[in-house]
């Protein structure tokens, strides 16, 4: 691709992202539902930590920080659209045929649509999460500067999750029903990603295992910023994010090449 073509091609993919954001805006009830769900989750866990006494588990970290931690992890998780379902549905129904006649990469377009949808969700759920956390804890974390660092890390987290979802969706070319892969991935995100509790609460060996996977990037990395101002940690997480994005893009390129060779379409 020549340098002159780069903005043209980027414009195509941006158009997918914009159209998807408009579609999400048209489906406002989904956004409202997710905001309400976020509020319920934060309420339940804030009560649990009040009873359990979180400060006993992590010195220097109180109930307020843990609620903000959960607000940030849930913000990224709930902002990630279920891209695997969209790809699986198109492969199953054969609608993928309509997409393949266009002069644009199928997987790239799907990822950009998910990014567009996620952008809107992040923009809506972010303030919702902050408001719920504020209302439930009565204030900001002890060192609120970390919250600024959580914003770019939240974007990295969502993008890595979208790439993982695309890989799960593409597996539909081999196994048709991708939900078992999704369940495994989701549970690993909850546990190894530290969705509900910071990884610092885990035993050392489990922390090491978790950090060798991309899962902490999707939850713990932005959430950790509610526990204190840690610019070095934020930088390390961002660098790790770049590596995982590269690896996942490589995997997706390989999968989409193989998928094209396997392609069979329903209805002829």
């Amino acid at each position: 691709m020549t340098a002159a073509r780069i903005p043209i091609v980027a414009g195509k993919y941006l158009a997918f992202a914009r159209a998807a954001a408009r579609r999400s805006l048209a489906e406002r009830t989904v956004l409202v539902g997710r905001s309400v769900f976020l509020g319920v989750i934060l309420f339940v866990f804030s009560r649990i930590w009040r009873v359990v006494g979180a400060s006993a588990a992590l010195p220097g970290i109180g109930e307020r920080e843990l609620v903000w931690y959960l607000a940030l992890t849930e913000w990224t998780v709930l902002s990630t659209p279920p891209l695997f379902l969209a790809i699986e549905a198109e492969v199953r129904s054969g609608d993928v045929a309509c997409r393949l006649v266009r002069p644009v990469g199928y997987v790239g377009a799907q990822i950009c649509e998910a990014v567009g949808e996620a952008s809107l969700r992040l923009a809506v759920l972010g303030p919702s999460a902050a408001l719920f956390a504020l209302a439930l804890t009565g204030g900001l974390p002890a060192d609120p500067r970390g919250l600024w660092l959580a914003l770019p890390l939240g974007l990295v987290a969502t993008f890595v999750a979208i790439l993982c979802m695309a890989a799960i969706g593409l597996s539909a070319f081999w196994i048709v029903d991708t939900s078992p892969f999704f369940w495994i991935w989701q549970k690993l995100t909850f546990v190894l990603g530290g969705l509900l509790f910071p990884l610092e609460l885990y035993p050392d060996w489990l922390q090491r295992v978790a950090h060798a996977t991309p899962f902490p990037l999707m939850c713990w990395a932005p959430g950790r910023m509610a526990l204190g101002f840690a610019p070095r940690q934020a930088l390390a997480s961002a660098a790790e994010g770049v590596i995982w994005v590269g690896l996942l893009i490589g995997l997706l390129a390989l999968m989409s090449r193989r998928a094209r060779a396997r392609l069979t379409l329903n209805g002829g």
Partner: protein
Amino acid sequence: MSKAIELERLRKVFRVRERTRGIAGALRGLVAPRTREVVAVDDVSFAIAAGERVAFVGPNGAGKSTTLKVLAGILRPTSGVVRVAGLEPGRDRGRLGYRIGAVFGQRSQLWMHLPAADTFDLLARIYELAPGEYRARRDELVRAFEIGEICEKPVRQLSLGERMRCELVASLLHRPEILFLDEPTIGLDVVAKATIRDLVRERGRRDGCTVLLTSHDTGDMERVCERVLVIHRGRLLLDRPVDALRKSFIPRKRISVVSEEAELSLDLPGVRRLPSAPHRTELEVDLRAVGVDRVVSQIFARARVLDLSVEDPPMEEIVTAIYAGACGAEAGA
């Protein structure tokens, strides 16, 4: 005249997994899956000149949609040579995409929750149309297809006929040289079918684009195309002008009449009464002996008609007739 589509000895074989019943069978399938080959297209060759409108017809499962998807670069051929607009679809899918348009009757390229106009805007970016050129083309097509109001409503609120008109506009925005239409009238009512056929024929003429239309409805080929390819069980049975096919293999029409009278009898040569019910009369008309117009006027003269429809024989019947003709020719030789 240059060739828009060239196909030589195309063969497409799918490998499908055989499912065995029961838990033991499922476990065996996991360890050592058994597969079998399904030949969807077998040794098919033809060429289509630029600007031709060709129907590719056959019963369900004949291999017409598979061929079309190979031509559009969606599926790769197992063997054979395929050239579309001078490109090899399997290798040049990206470049070919700018030069072809496609409508799949059972699928949608439009975004269901957004107005069709939003999809048009997105397609303009995908096909890299200059803003002025895009607006002029969109306005021209919106007028021609009469979708001014329709294209501002979310697609999910449109009827199938309205949606299909929007699909056609979406596929024509970038002025494709070749238009692939896969069952464009499937599921439509009589009026919507007629509208779509007229629009495709007119647009093909006006833009000079090559049209390859697959259908199992003989009406599509009669109203839109000048040449017909008949495919059955993956093999090309026939390649000839539509007029010649009509004369040789579609010499009959069926007329169904619902009348106030319980019985309706006609005394015309070439009209045969099929098994009917009280108030509903089924007639078969031999077009070589009598025209449909004459039969219909006599029906109206003899009965108070509540409903009337004129239909072609089903594609399966035509294929059977073609088979019989081909076998007869072989026996004669």
